[in-house]
């Protein structure tokens, strides 16, 4: 608990730096491409197209998806509103785990805490996420899913995503610095998560030999975030209040991650340079 407070204090005190450094991070990420930042839209668009083709047309045969409030949503819209989170979370999980050991030589001597490194990497990704969310919101205005009061939940879910990513990054960046293999493990896990989060396929009930396995999917904390984004963008429910157990579970897991991450990070950070 004490370590967690230390980390939070560090985050707040270096907030200005996190913002400034994330701008540089973004610049250096796109400097080699001719199309520059345009790829941040083009890449997701290509992926959405192929997933829509394979899952929407190929597997589902163009069938619509029933939402919680009874409305039938086209598969593409259902998928895009969930995938918008994935396009942010997926690269962030892998790049934050690399964040410390790939930068430590560049910034070994600095006057800000090392816990700010994952945060500024996350912030750099967050800008393009905002852009993508805005784009999806605009597209949705041309469908039956126009902006509604439910939309005000979105900032909450964005904040939840950021905090969750930071908590996870504290663990993964520390472990990956000490043991490089963790990097590979994280890549495999994120690849799995694509299919274990309600992004590409949908079942109200997952039954196997008459045993209800739906709860297994809900153990994934990303379930809460993805469904929350969807509820806000498509205007289906007040997700935070209507599913209090999910809310509690998500914050519980995030807190546990945060505590473990802070303890690990503080314990090893003085020796990170030795592990290179």
């Amino acid at each position: 608990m004490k370590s967690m407070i230390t980390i939070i204090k560090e985050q707040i005190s270096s907030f200005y730096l996190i913002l400034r450094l994330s701008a540089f991070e973004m610049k250096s990420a796109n400097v080699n491409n001719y199309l520059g930042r345009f790829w941040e839209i083009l890449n997701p668009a290509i992926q959405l197209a192929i997933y829509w083709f394979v899952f929407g047309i190929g597997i589902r045969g163009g069938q619509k998806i029933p939402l919680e409030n009874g409305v039938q949503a086209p598969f593409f819209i259902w998928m895009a509103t969930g995938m918008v989170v994935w396009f942010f979370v997926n690269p962030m999980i892998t790049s934050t785990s690399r964040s410390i050991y790939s930068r430590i030589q560049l910034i070994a001597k600095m006057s800000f805490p090392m816990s700010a490194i994952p945060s500024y990497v996350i912030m750099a990704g967050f800008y393009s996420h905002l852009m993508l969310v805005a784009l999806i919101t605009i597209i949705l205005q041309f469908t039956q899913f126009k902006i509604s009061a439910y939309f005000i939940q979105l900032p909450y879910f964005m904040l939840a995503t950021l905090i969750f990513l930071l908590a996870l990054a504290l663990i993964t960046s520390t472990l990956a610095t000490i043991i490089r293999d963790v990097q590979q493990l994280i890549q495999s896990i994120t690849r799995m998560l694509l299919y274990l989060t309600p992004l590409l396929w949908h079942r109200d009930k997952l039954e196997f030999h008459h045993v209800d396995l739906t709860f297994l999917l809900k153990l994934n904390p990303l379930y809460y975030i993805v469904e929350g984004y969807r509820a806000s963008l498509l205007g289906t429910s007040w997700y935070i209040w209507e599913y209090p157990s999910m809310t509690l579970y998500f914050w519980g897991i995030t807190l546990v991650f945060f505590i473990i991450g802070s303890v690990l990070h503080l314990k090893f950070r003085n020796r990170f340079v030795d592990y290179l």
Partner: protein
Amino acid sequence: MTESVIVKNVYKKYKMHTKPTEKLLDLILPGGYGEDFYALQDISFTAKQGDVVGLVGVNGSGKSTLSNIIAGVIPPTTGTVETVGQTSIIAISSGLNNQLTGRENIELKCLMLGFKKKEIQAMEPEIIEFADIGKFIDQPVKKYSSGMKSRLGFAISVTVNPDILIVDEALSVGDQVFAQKSKNKMFEFKEKGKTIFFVSHSMGQIKEFCETAIWLEYGEIKQYGPVPEVIPQYEKFLKKYKSMSNEEQKKFREKVMQKQRGLATI
């Protein structure tokens, strides 16, 4: 004059591993696993403001390790290092971001050293003038020659006005003109009463700059004192070492290795 760098009983221990499994064991076992290697053993000294200290020693004697520890880049295994004021280290690989332009690197580097935007804007022209790399300042650093990189790195490090400056063989890359410019800057620092640590293999440069010298031999301080005392002794040792037969050199190295493993006390 007040003391600005106090180094007390500093040890730096590394573990030598030949296989990944040994590395893993080292992480898991509470006592660690693997052969010890002492890069530095029981280093203690103090430097005052205005001191220019030369660090000399043959390859592998721990000069760079010591300068990194003084700069705070790597932590000592045991012992303490106290520094008064900001430290800045200039090494050949100066830690620039290859993707960004020189100008962006200046801002990035200064940000990380904790400067405000206004201060950076004020320093930028000064850095660019000192580095003197012309239009390349707006080119990505990956297109720089090694000389340009070290010039930019040097320019940033001296312009941020550190209280303690550590120069790790950085002067050996630039050409004569730039070396002269850097030397002048360092003389200026010397007059301002800053502490400078100077790592070099060039005895000429050490004699020109430094008043005191630390002679490191395989992780230990062999001698610490005024340059006229230490450097002749060191030169004498170099001569002797060079004139040794291969056999003798090998024996000497083995003896030293034993010492660095912490096995023998000579």
